[in-house]
């Protein structure tokens, strides 16, 4: 090795510094340092490889928090509900972490994260930590980083973690495999009863909430949801979801809602259903990380060596088909990569 190729002392120092910083973040988080937790969440969201090493250290400290998912259409009052649920859990002496997700603009990549507007009264309560995330192009109602950010809050020792999805339509159901208890928030007047028998988010709730229950047709919405639940083929077996009425902006129905969360939590443990739920959740998390890592390894390889551009150009003239190209690359990587 020539003189010029040896790493300079400055560079070596930089590497050491980075390593020390890495160790410091996770350790500081475990001692309750808020700033480090916020920083790590940023590194996770921005896809920094160093975040993976931090998450390795935090993982053994996770698995204690009760994770509640809140999903429903835009404007249903999810953020206001999260605010009131947080206040209710604080009254019960529990610490609360919140992850609130809003959409990224597909055109500019920018986002307005406005869920905090409804909850910022909790900002300076040391027993509450709120983090806003943008979807950054991820479909399914959550951001790609949500699971890892929840893990950071869990490792920080938050008793309850509430995940608020983006305002969803019918098919954004990632929250189910993230939360212990999934709450679907509806409001009166969104559609006729045929909406309630379609597939999708109405099948995923452990708890259903009709918010803005002071509106005229609230009872009709409750009835329609209840009818839909009664027709469930699993009726009578296991957990029976209820439909609750709330007026989040007036703090009505919130204590009953939190009681229902706690009933579901007790059910999960007493029935052993928690075991099956966690198994599915862990498998999904592992597969996601595996998929992402494999893809990024393979893709960065073919991007750097020019194959990617070659293949796309070949498709243009129909000389190359994408199916054979993928087969070739996978076969090559499996042979050479360890």
């Amino acid at each position: 090795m020539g003189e010029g190729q040896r790493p300079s002392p400055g560079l070596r120092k930089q590497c050491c510094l980075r390593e020390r910083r890495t160790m410091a973040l996770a350790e500081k988080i475990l001692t309750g340092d808020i700033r480090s937790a916020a920083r790590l969440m940023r590194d996770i969201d921005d896809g920094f490889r160093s975040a993976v090493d931090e998450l390795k250290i935090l993982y053994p400290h996770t698995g204690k928090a009760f994770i509640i998912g809140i999903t429903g259409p835009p404007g249903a009052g999810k953020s206001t509900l999260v605010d009131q649920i947080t206040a209710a859990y604080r009254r019960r002496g529990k610490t609360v972490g919140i992850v609130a997700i809003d959409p990224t603009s597909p055109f500019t990549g920018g986002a307005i994260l406005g869920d905090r507007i409804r909850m910022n009264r909790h900002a300076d309560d040391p027993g509450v930590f709120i983090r806003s995330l943008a979807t950054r192009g991820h479909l399914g109602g959550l951001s790609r980083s949500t699971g890892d950010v929840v893990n950071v809050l869990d490792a920080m020792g938050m008793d309850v973690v509430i995940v608020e999805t983006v305002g969803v339509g019918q098919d954004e159901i990632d929250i189910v495999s993230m939360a212990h208890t999934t709450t679907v928030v509806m409001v009166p007047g969104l559609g006729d009863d045929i909406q309630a028998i379609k597939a999708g988010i109405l099948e995923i709730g452990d708890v259903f909430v009709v918010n803005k229950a002071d509106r005229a047709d609230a009872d009709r919405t409750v009835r329609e949801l209840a009818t839909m639940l009664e027709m469930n083929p699993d009726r009578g077996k296991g957990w029976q979801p209820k439909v609750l009425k709330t007026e989040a902006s007036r703090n009505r129905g919130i204590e009953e809602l939190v009681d229902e969360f706690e009933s579901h939590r007790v059910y999960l443990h007493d029935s052993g259903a928690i075991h099956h739920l966690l198994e599915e959740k862990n498998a999904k998390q592992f597969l996601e990380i595996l998929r992402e890592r494999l893809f990024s390894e393979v893709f960065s390889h073919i991007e750097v060596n020019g194959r990617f551009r070659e293949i796309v150009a070949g498709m243009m003239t129909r000389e190359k088909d994408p199916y054979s190209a993928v087969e070739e690359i996978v076969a090559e990587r499996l042979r050479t990569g360890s």
Partner: protein
Amino acid sequence: MAERKLRVMVGKPGLDGHDRGAKIIARAFRDAGFEVIYTGLHQTPEQIVAAAIQEDVDCVGLSILSGAHNTLLPRICELFREKQADDIIIFGGGVIPDDDIPGLKAAGLKEVFTPGTSTEDIVKWVKDNVPPRA
């Protein structure tokens, strides 16, 4: 894969209820490709500082039209220093007399924008003066 996205917070400290300006700025930042956290109205300095730290933002823009800028804005700068978070860049805007600007800058505001400033100028200033976290 790894790429820093600029995170900006728009805060409304104090008691004035005029957030049209804050919302327009928030929208301009969104269109510039930033992630914008808006706190909503009537925030205390403590709430703004706590929120900025939890959100790990690169900078905080404070909109104030109540006339209480000489009290609230220096207090916010002081709290950031107390929390050892004074690496977060703070700037302000609103109905602020020219005579008050030097004092606010001495207190820790990096820039103060007065009525008539275009959103393009503010976005450009942020791009030029706020490096995303290393």
